[in-house]
């Protein structure tokens, strides 16, 4: 019994470890708790690499197609959410096409940001 329990724990711990793209999120006073955890994620790291569902993609068009295909058939707002995580230092030439691509693909953007820490931004 103990052996089975340990094997189960190890299985779940390993399964839940996923490669997270390291970003420094921007800070804003208006950040609220995002209630649902969207299933679709688009990330841009400090170097400008774009990741869709954890895998690197070459450009924003790939994002549009990816979002469009994953959102096919979804009607409610809850299922159309796309989590957008972007490093705060990324320039507009990188993130603007990606934001537009998500919007064109029909996704509702949940942009991740932090509340400013005590003592200023």
């Amino acid at each position, binding site marked *: 019994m103990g052996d089975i329990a340990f094997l189960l724990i190890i299985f779940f711990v390993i399964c839940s470890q996923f490669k997270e793209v390291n970003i420094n999120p921007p800070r804003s006073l208006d950040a609220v708790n995002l209630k649902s955890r969207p299933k679709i994620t688009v990330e841009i790291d400090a170097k400008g690499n774009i990741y869709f569902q954890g895998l690197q993609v070459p450009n924003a068009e790939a994002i549009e197609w990816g979002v469009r295909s994953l959102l096919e058939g979804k009607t409610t707002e809850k299922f159309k959410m796309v989590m957008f995580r972007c490093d705060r230092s990324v320039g507009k030439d990188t993130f603007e096409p990606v934001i537009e691509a998500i*919007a064109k693909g029909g996704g509702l953007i949940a*942009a991740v940001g932090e509340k400013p820490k005590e003592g200023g931004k």
Partner: protein
Amino acid sequence: MALRKRRGKKDIPTIPVNSFADIAFLLIIFFIIATKLIQNTGVIADIPAGEKSESQADKTTTVQLHDNKITFNAEDIDIPALRQQLMKLDLHKKIGDNKVILLEATGEVNYQTYFDVMSTISAAGGVITIVREDEGK
């Protein structure tokens, strides 16, 4: 008859394993709860996918970002003042095209500033439409 436990040379002392299963279950529950506690904070930005006609550009409220400086309706502004101005417009009560705020970014704009503006507009109830400089939307 009393049974005496024989302590021979072959008797190996064992660790009592009865409580291992309990510890295992506690660990599982701990990891399940710990992963649920990772909260995400952020802003939900309403950005429509459709193309808007050029005629709207004159009448619609515009926020311009140039080299990380914010301009609202042709006057320079900072984030708290922008929030006040947008709140004055009472966008929550408006519908459809009256909620649209054009967001135009030119020059060197980093995501921090863009995010600040996006979250301010979204918090005020505005629908963001992105204006791209090359397409001249």
